[in-house]
């Protein structure tokens, strides 16, 4: 069990190969307790692969991953009870109502006083009005809030999010960001998110891990990265790293 203050995520020499393709190439990082950390990188940089390994959905080729103090190769079930995940690319059953989906997942996570928990989440995430509607009938914004409710059903100590505001209108996306920020402050949870939205990362994250071609090329706070690369914002830093030749982008920045 991770004591308070210990890094909830410790990744050591992580490698993942699919046949001859190396998706993750010996990356090491830790994520600080109570932080919001971003995994940034272009398509195919290894963000989703890293998240999938942290969730135990994917087995690494080599290296080790400890989540909340548990070795994900051996003690996956113990860690999974304390964490949760949301992605626009993984659905909830569309024919079940929102309340039914939350009820099923609440039971899977062993949530006590489940009815009270669902009511509280519905109130918080403003989904009470459509609790009885089929999940598949909801708009993209409503579905994102429902997916977030599922991801928070067990009050996770670690929340992994894959593009949490993808395909949302600016107003809904802003609402989700404010909610996540508030959740982290109120609960003390740690959030690790993969995103392509640089403004979102600048606003939400304390720490940024820059991935490129499966390697970790740089990390730092958004402000530190912007200063180090001499750019105006994180988007320019992202483009700088993505478009540089294969040498170490961090070295290039210096």
């Amino acid at each position, binding site marked *: *069990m991770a004591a308070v203050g210990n890094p909830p995520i410790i990744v050591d020499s992580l490698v993942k190969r*699919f046949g001859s393709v190396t998706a993750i190439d010996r990356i090491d990082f830790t994520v600080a307790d109570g932080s919001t950390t971003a995994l940034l990188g272009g398509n195919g940089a290894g963000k*989703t*692969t890293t998240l*999938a390994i942290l*969730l*135990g*959905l*994917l*087995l690494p080729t080599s290296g080790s991953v400890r989540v909340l103090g548990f070795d994900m190769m051996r*003690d996956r*079930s*113990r860690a*999974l*009870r*304390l964490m*949760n*995940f949301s*992605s626009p*690319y*993984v*659905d*909830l*059953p*569309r*024919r*079940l*109502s929102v309340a*039914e989906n939350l*009820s*099923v*997942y*609440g*039971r*899977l*996570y*062993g949530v006590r006083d489940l009815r009270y928990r669902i009511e*509280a989440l519905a*109130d*918080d995430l403003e989904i009470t009005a459509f609790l009885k509607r089929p999940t598949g009938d909801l708009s993209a914004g409503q579905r994102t809030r429902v997916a977030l409710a*599922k991801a*928070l059903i*067990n*009050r996770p*100590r670690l929340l992994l999010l894959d593009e949490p505001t993808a395909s949302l209108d600016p107003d809904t996306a802003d609402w989700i960001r404010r909610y996540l920020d*508030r*959740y982290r402050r*109120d*609960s*003390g*949870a740690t959030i690790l998110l993969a995103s392509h939205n640089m403004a979102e990362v600048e606003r939400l994250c304390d720490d940024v891990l820059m991935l490129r071609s499966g390697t970790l090329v740089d990390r730092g706070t958004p402000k530190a990265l912007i200063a180090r690369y001499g750019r105006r914002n994180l988007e320019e830093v992202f483009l700088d790293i993505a478009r540089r030749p294969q040498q170490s982008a961090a070295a290039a920045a210096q």
Partner: protein
Amino acid sequence: MRDARADRIDAVPESAVAFSWQRVSALMLRHLYILRRSWPRVLDLAYWPTVQMLLWGFITVFFQQHSSWVAEAAGVLISAVLLWDVLFRANLGLSLSFLEEMWARNLGQLFVSPMRPAELVTAMSLLSLIRTLISVTPAAVLALPLFDVWVFSLGPPLVAFFANLLVLGWTVGLIVSALVLRLGLGAENLAWVAIFAIAPLSGIYYPIETLPVWLQPVSWALPSAYVFEGMRAVLFEGTFRWDLLAGAVALNAVYFAAAVTFFLRMIHVARERGLLLQQGE
């Protein structure tokens, strides 16, 4: 945001890692919610076994007048078709529970929860039992007023036949689910057709000795062959063949254990290859 810090889970109780019936019931609930409010689905489950029973009922009526073999035991064909449907529905019930998770792109969500694969297998098996009972019971009951055949008159042996065919159906369903997980939804038709490969060899409507001699050992490698021979022994001779039951149970134990192992292995392969995140239509 009312209660996030106050209610944070700070310990992992042993139940989180041991086999959990609560999680099994949660996995079942997901399917029962849909079944409960969808009468067309329930009707669809019962429809085909009833049509089959009617078809074989009328064939029985005809054969009773033209075949001394059927005339000896009037219920043999109807009992056979109902027991065959137990096998078919048990296989389909398990496969469909798994396929529905793939169609819904829900496998990823399930596998990032504390659910254990053994709980998934248990839930799918129990759902298969429920679907099989819904499918076969109406046809079995209707056979009495329509054809004067009461399949429950088989007595306690019926429970043994039912249980063995149920487990064989689960075995085929698990293998099909594992293959679909590995090969993708392009292989989903296996759920409907795979079971028919063993139908001609199971001696559903005829004794195993009807088959060519060289094919009979293959039949005797199937638990279903022992069940249908056992059924005919009860109906024609009024005896319950314990040796046949023992054969079916022994083969089922081996095959079911192998199917569970294969299913768990394919989950491991799916985790190696990233298949759990890529499923869907």
